[in-house]
């Protein structure tokens, strides 16, 4: 594998998929500079990869059937958790009363479960709890592809998004993902500080026509959430950090979004 030429199909595939050692990748990059036809093939593979991700990533935000969530739970805990066993009955009863918060203990599984209405702040807290704890895949697209991330989420939400820059308050962008909402999907940006603490910003286009911009605070299952509505968009900043610290970050986010003059959704 020392000689750079000739390149095989395997080399091109592995290069396009970023699966080579740095050294080998450098060798191949050098060859590609001299071989436009090969470079075009790599570009084509990468374009296809992006297209496939684009097409298939939208499935990840779909609501999950309750049967699958049950099947994902340990058989033993399924037996022990009486609440869980009683869940279908509970849900049936609760569905008669619109707006009743139900299933308090069932944090993660409520998040994307089909047909479960959740308040925006609660959705933000649950989304944060689920993904901030995910070691491997907290985000769908990482910050090194920030431009693609913002473009993709903007396309999915049908309006121009901005990922706030929180470096001044010590939080760097980790990346983002599309998340399920009650009706429409939302976008989540995740940030991390030097202590590996994570906060996340959930954005969605709001159905209500509320123009109010006041910050509101909620605590959901130990997760602090500041949320506000601005220009028909809902924003929620969630984290397990100090309330005052979170508030000051929320102000930074708010300030940046105000300056960035988002292209207002047309409705």
């Amino acid at each position: 594998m020392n000689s750079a030429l000739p390149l095989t199909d395997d080399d091109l595939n592995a290069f396009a998929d970023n699966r080579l050692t740095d050294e080998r990748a450098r060798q191949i990059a050098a060859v590609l500079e001299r071989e436009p036809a090969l470079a075009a093939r790599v570009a084509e593979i990468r374009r296809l990869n992006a297209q496939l991700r684009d097409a298939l990533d939208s499935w990840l935000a779909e609501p999950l059937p309750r049967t699958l969530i049950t099947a994902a739970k340990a058989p033993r805990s399924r037996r022990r958790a009486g609440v869980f066993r009683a869940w279908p009955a509970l849900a049936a009863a609760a569905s008669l009363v619109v707006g009743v918060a139900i299933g308090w203990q069932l944090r993660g599984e409520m998040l994307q479960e089909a047909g479960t209405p959740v308040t925006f702040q609660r959705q933000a807290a649950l989304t944060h709890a689920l993904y901030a704890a995910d070691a491997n895949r907290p985000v769908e697209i990482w910050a090194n592809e920030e431009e693609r991330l913002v473009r993709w989420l903007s396309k999915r939400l049908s309006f121009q998004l901005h990922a706030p820059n929180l470096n001044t308050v010590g939080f760097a962008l980790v990346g983002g993902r599309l998340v399920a909402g009650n009706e429409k999907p939302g976008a989540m940006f995740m940030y991390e500080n030097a202590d590996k603490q994570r906060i996340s910003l959930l954005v969605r286009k709001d159905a209500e026509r509320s123009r109010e911009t006041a910050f509101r605070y909620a605590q959901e299952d130990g997760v602090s959430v500041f949320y506000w509505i601005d220009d028909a968009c809902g924003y929620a900043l969630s984290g397990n950090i100090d309330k005052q610290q979170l508030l000051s970050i929320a102000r930074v986010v708010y300030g940046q979004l105000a300056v960035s003059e988002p292209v207002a959704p047309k409705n």
Partner: protein
Amino acid sequence: MSETLPDPDLVAALPRLRRYARVLTGDVNRADDLVQDTLARAWEKRQLWRAGSDLRAWLFTIMHNVHVNQFSIRRRELAESSLDADDGPVAGWQIPVRATQSDRIELNEVLTQIGRLPTDQREVLILAAVEELRYEDIARVQGVPIGTVMSRLNRAREKLRRMNADAHAPFKVVK
């Protein structure tokens, strides 16, 4: 050794398992059945999971095997004899596109195209391009040597390239 398979992680893996099941079956309902069977199998085999290893790849491996078994049973039921690796495209491939944006046509097109790939090739392509698994892990998922993975990946991309060239023939410069 009995490691504990963490169920929050399994719940978190659900969207990806569902997606992979759709890629394998080409059918939303059959995909959810496959996820269900995979989870049951994962709990049965939880002793085999090593804490700290890639849970996603482990679950994909189980799903691959469950699917291969079910698929071969179905094929036997259909009185088909051959079980060669390069099985044909999924019969009745129908994956809905949820997007409502203007890119719908393009998404539909790419989904239709991957539906025309043999399952093994489609599997490798999605694991490499979308799940971004390492080739070694893909080889483990499919239980084949890494060279097989590479050649399946190459053939999948080559076929898609040709389909694309055909689909956009009037607009493409012929090399």
